[in-house]
């Protein structure tokens, strides 16, 4: 029973059910899905947990302002060490010590340290690792998909060993060709929940920004296995969140 401030999050939280371990958010140029990441980050911090945010797409100031409009103060959480923000716009940085793999290893080690520290701490709440986004990890790795997959698999291992969940954003339209679907397929395979943002076939509209499909594999909960698995609904992004509604139910 997640509390969603500002309403409208009901359909999405209903579709997602209780905390999934691995959530993959897919989007495309016509329908950006970053707003789902923002919602999930807010949700992770609101329920008393902690989060590590790997930001490759935007600087901290951007997320701070966006989440502030949604009622979540990232600066405060960062000061209280509930949010660990990795600003990776320039990752791995100028003086590259070693290979890309080494940089990924260092990054992973830091994340692991944080997760372990959180588990050992007094209020061992849920820890969420959010990655924005996986397609940029490939650019960082200059195309070495294996390095990216290694890194993601290590993060995935954290979710099963510790009380940790993983949220990854990936641009599915980059992987439309058969040859390079590797990363996308891997992520879809390890995901418990796949949330895909797509444009409407009729194009852009002021009232409906796109459609969201949620596939809930229910691998982590027995009751879930019998519940509804596939959800389709429309969304409209707003400054303070997003509205989710079934087609035609918009007043």
């Amino acid at each position: 029973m997640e509390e969603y401030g500002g309403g409208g999050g009901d359909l999405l939280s209903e579709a997602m059910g209780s905390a999934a371990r691995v959530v993959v958010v897919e989007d495309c140029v016509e329908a950006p899905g970053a707003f789902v990441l923002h919602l999930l980050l807010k949700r992770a911090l609101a329920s008393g947990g902690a989060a590590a945010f790997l930001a490759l797409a935007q600087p901290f100031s951007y997320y701070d302002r966006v989440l502030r409009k949604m009622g979540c103060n990232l600066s405060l959480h960062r000061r209280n060490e509930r949010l660990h923000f990795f600003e990776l716009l320039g990752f791995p940085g100028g003086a590259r010590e070693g290979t890309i793999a080494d940089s990924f290893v260092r990054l992973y080690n830091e994340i692991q340290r944080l997760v372990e520290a959180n588990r050992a701490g007094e209020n061992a709440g849920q820890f969420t690792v959010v990655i924005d986004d996986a397609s940029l990890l490939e650019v960082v790795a200059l195309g070495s998909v294996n390095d990216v997959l290694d890194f993601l698999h290590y993060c995935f291992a954290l979710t099963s060993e510790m009380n940790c969940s993983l949220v990854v954003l990936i641009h599915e339209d980059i992987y439309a060709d058969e040859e390079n679907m590797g990363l996308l397929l891997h992520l879809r395979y390890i995901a418990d929940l796949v949330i895909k943002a797509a444009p409407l076939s009729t194009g852009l509209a002021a009232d409906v920004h796109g459609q969201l499909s949620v596939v809930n594999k229910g691998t982590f909960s027995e009751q879930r296995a019998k519940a509804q698995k596939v959800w389709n609904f429309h969304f409209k992004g707003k400054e303070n969140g997003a509205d989710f509604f079934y087609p035609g139910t918009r007043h």
Partner: protein
Amino acid sequence: MAAAGGRTLGRSSFSRATSNPVASSSGASGVKIGPNGAAFVSSGIPDLDRILGGGFLLGSVVMIMEDADVPHHLLLLRCFMSQGVVHKQPLLFSGAMKEPRLFLGTLPAPVSSSKEDGRYRAMGAAASSDGQANDEGLRIAWQYKKYFGDDSRAEHKDNKQEFSNDFDLRKPLERHLLNGQNIECVSIQDADTLSGLQDCCTSFLSKLPRKDGGSLTAGRIAIQSLCAPQCRYFEKDWDMVSFIRSLKAMVRSSNSVAVITFPSTVLSNSFCKRWQHLADTLLSIKAIPDEDKDLAKLLTGYQDMVGFLRVHKVAQTNSQVPVILEASTLSLKLRKRRSLVLERLNQAPVDGSSGPSSAASSSCSSQGSQLDF
């Protein structure tokens, strides 16, 4: 509603307009301050500034997908660069050509505000006021609204002439304006890697740091045909996308805007999408077929159009809400054969003689096959 009691949390989507109207006419720096801490520079095309909600956002990357058949991306680039020269903003230009300096000779000069233009603007204002008065007695069909001109054009004439200029594409920019200027040119045609260009960008941008609330000098980076096949680094897909990523990171923290044009068809679908995702503002040019009878029947003013401009993405500061434009495909026209204007597409009146159903079906079918609005 505005935040009550000084709470910073839970701010609604309404933001108090903190922009000082006086500051917006700080024409010397050519920077316009908008809401939410946004700062804009003009694209050099007043219509485009209006459509994008102010201009090109400082700190953003604008990408323009070229059409292999027509060089209209160069028109956009030239207006962008000329605007920077007119406002004395530092400019870094890079092109897939041997001598980028020569390209500067093709930059257009601002339209001289002659009596002709003064009359045109006055006419525009008068027509709009007449239109307003007549609206009560006469219902104007929506498609003819554009002929009544823009109210804002007359009102903000003074501000506009400082922030954004109309450029005369037939007249080259005066030499002396170019000579005294901070303009750097880099050729990327013979470069094996993009590291040289990246270093130039780094040093260029390091002189233009970003500070909140200040309208400091804004800089412009213009890169023409970044993935042109004749460039030596052309095969290095990952290097190119990595360069764009680092450029974007540097531009984010600087007081500048980067405009990159690229022939999207020479990239693989996968990489083309990667480039598109990296863009903050994404535009594309589409050629218009000559002598297309179906199009001529479908659109008004077809004869004057030189191409289509499509707006795919519009940069925003600190917002997760996408910008939904009323019309994302616009026609490129040359007004009086010299200045670039963008207009919404208007469907031509249906030809009564051929019968309503057949005309409608023929226009629908041609629309489906050729046009992609």
